């Protein structure tokens, strides 16, 4: 695709696209003047090139009837992305910012359509890094079939943020007859995940490099709306889906147990975790059930739909390693209990704060 060198301005006249010719971002790029316009034109409009964004209005505008033809409810979500390092094996902050918000829409049963992109940049960030992130956002958005239609740029003094923060909000449409909710799980329902857990958390911890472990673990960062579409096709009465991001699988299961006032029993043996991630956690004294994922969800389906749901998920590339990991019960409402590989049982509670490595 070639990018036009001219941009249609708000008043309808064409203007010359701004060009950024410096290696690093300075406070001038947030000042509202020509430097800022160059930055937005060159880095963001260039990467996200689309007719909704190019006029650079203060808002994106949608045709209501177009949205209404897709379903009966709008879904609207927002998430901020702060990750250190900005680039890590399997992705970067840009891919994360698109996939994360797409997933937050998709787990509600929505077809993701439009995203916003607000960036807060610490002065001194290399323009090349920003270009890479914007390109990565553009490619993730294209893959996910969403359009980035509005945005904002701020530059702050050194130390006021860590290199680059991104916020994306998203809009999607939920089709008729889908009713997903954390409070809808019932005893005998079945709990599934779409693949191995903990990859993202382990990849990020490892990429920070202070453990000096060499490991091939990659983030699982991926947009899940396609897989979720397939799942909902196979099991339209699915009770609930949530992506297992911060706080990992353990947190999602606790949220379901609390909201539905049911017990959840999972089987450690059936819970898929990569050998490398297990080893990584073993060394650091971490529990993979609490590690973040960026391409994994847990879902609750009716017992009668479990096999159909599993089959449909396993037929999709992002669900190949999907597994049934447990059941909803009426024992111990509000609690998640795990049958351990060793044959014992333990409670899987919410984390108090962040997970910290153990001394010895």
């Amino acid at each position, binding site marked *: 695709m070639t990018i036009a060198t001219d941009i249609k301005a708000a008043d309808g006249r064409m203007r010359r696209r701004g060009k950024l010719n410096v290696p690093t971002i300075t406070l001038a790029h947030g000042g509202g003047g020509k430097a800022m316009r160059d930055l937005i034109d060159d880095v963001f409009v260039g990467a996200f090139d689309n007719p909704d964004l190019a006029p650079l209005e203060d808002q994106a505008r949608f045709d209501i009837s177009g949205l209404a033809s897709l379903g009966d409810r709008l879904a609207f979500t927002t998430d901020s992305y702060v990750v250190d390092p900005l680039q890590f094996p399997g992705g970067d902050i840009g891919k994360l910012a698109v996939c994360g918000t797409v997933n937050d829409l998709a787990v509600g049963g929505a077809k993701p359509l439009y995203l916003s992109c607000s960036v807060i940049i610490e002065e001194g960030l290399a323009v090349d890094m920003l270009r890479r992130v914007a390109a990565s956002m553009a490619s993730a958005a294209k893959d996910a079939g969403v359009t980035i239609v509005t945005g904002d740029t701020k530059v702050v003094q050194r130390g006021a943020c860590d290199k680059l923060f991104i916020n994306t909000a998203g809009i999607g449409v939920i089709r008729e007859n889908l009713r997903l909710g954390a409070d809808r799980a019932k005893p005998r329902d079945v709990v599934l995940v779409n693949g191995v857990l903990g990859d993202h958390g382990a990849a990020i911890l490892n990429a920070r490099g*202070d*453990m000096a472990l060499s490991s091939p673990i990659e983030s699982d960062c991926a947009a899940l709306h396609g897989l979720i579409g397939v799942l909902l096709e196979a099991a339209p009465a699915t009770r609930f889906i949530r992506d297992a991001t911060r706080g990992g699988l353990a947190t999602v299961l606790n949220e379901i147990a609390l909201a539905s006032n049911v017990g959840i029993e999972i089987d450690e043996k059936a819970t898929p975790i990569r*050998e490398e991630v*297990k*080893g990584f956690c*073993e060394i*650091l*004294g971490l*529990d993979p059930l609490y590690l973040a994922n960026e391409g994994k969800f847990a879902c609750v389906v009716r017992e009668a739909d479990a096999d159909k749901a599993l089959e449909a998920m396993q037929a999709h590339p992002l669900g190949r390693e999907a597994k049934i990991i447990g059941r909803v019960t009426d024992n*111990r409402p509000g*609690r998640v*209990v*795990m049958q*351990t*590989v*060793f*044959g*014992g*049982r*333990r*409670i*899987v*509670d919410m984390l*108090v*704060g962040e997970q*910290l*490595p*153990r*001394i*010895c």
Partner: protein
Amino acid sequence: MKYVDEFRDPDKARALLKEIEGLVARIETCRTRPLAIMEVCGGHTHSIFKYGIETMLPDEIELVHGPGCPVCVLPMGRVDDCVALAETPGVIFTTFGDAMRVPGSKKSLMQAKAEGADVRMVYSPLDALELARKHPDREVVFFGLGFETTMPSTALTILQAEADGIRNFSLFCNHITIIPTIKAILDSPELQLDGFLGPGHVSMVIGSAPYRFISEHYKRPLVIAGFEPLDVLQSLWMVLKQIAEGRAEIENQYNRIVPERGNPVALDAISRVFELREFFEWRGLGSIDHSGVRIRKNYAQFDAERKFSVPAIKIADPKSCQCGEVLKGVIKPWDCKVFGGACTPETPLGALMVSPEGACAAYYQYGDIDKVHKRTDAA
């Protein structure tokens, strides 16, 4: 995982449990009261809870979770000292991760960090020394914590700092030693322990000989145990076998790691750098003679207590806490008046609620399911 999964085999566990049930049937005491076996080390407590080992054992065996969690037994006054050091201008304060959350009388290191102190999490004291090399204009203090397991690495780091002539590195020494603590527990008048699982990694350093007084003088069996769930079960079986046969000996289940004489290189580094303190204050247990070490005079330049002014104010444990009784096995965590109420992992009052290796936090978070369940329902 190779060489790990083998030690988590549920079939072998079932076979061992059967043997354990057989032994329990042979032990006279079991007919009148449960046998109380203490695992001294926090690492064992962690394994016991992580694998749900307690839920598999017959009711006649009660596990008492001992004082071997160095984070838990750190007194509040020492945490205050850490915070004071961390807040000293120019200091980079380095610590193991799980010590970050331990509450002092006013704040934890994590709160101090949020308020602007330069507190950094490291994975080894050598990482702290590296920071000192990188920041010659700053004073890097390492928070040395733990039993004989972590002592050698701290000692070797100090020897390295001396060899490299690094002057901006020091150690805030809170290392503690296990033997006097086991002795203090054995001397306690309320004691009701029938046997011990001995700490595996401490023993890798000190060997098995230092435990002999436990069998000889106190007539209790001790089995040095590994940390995988089958290690723990097999060690329990070995303790029960001794009790059933009327023996009280020091045995070593963890012989793939623990040599009888320990690790002479590590022991040498420890004795070059450290000497015993007259006494050391423990959270929950009070002052125990010769239970802590400090840096010898020869290495005074690396001693943060000499280099900086440390407040060293003693803060009493909260009165409502019954940590000491839990540690000695006199009461169970859920028998404590404040367990799950005023004292939770979010707002710990007592030592044992602080780290996931502490008995109370472990019970609260993923412990004996039915007991915890009953307890939290009642609260």
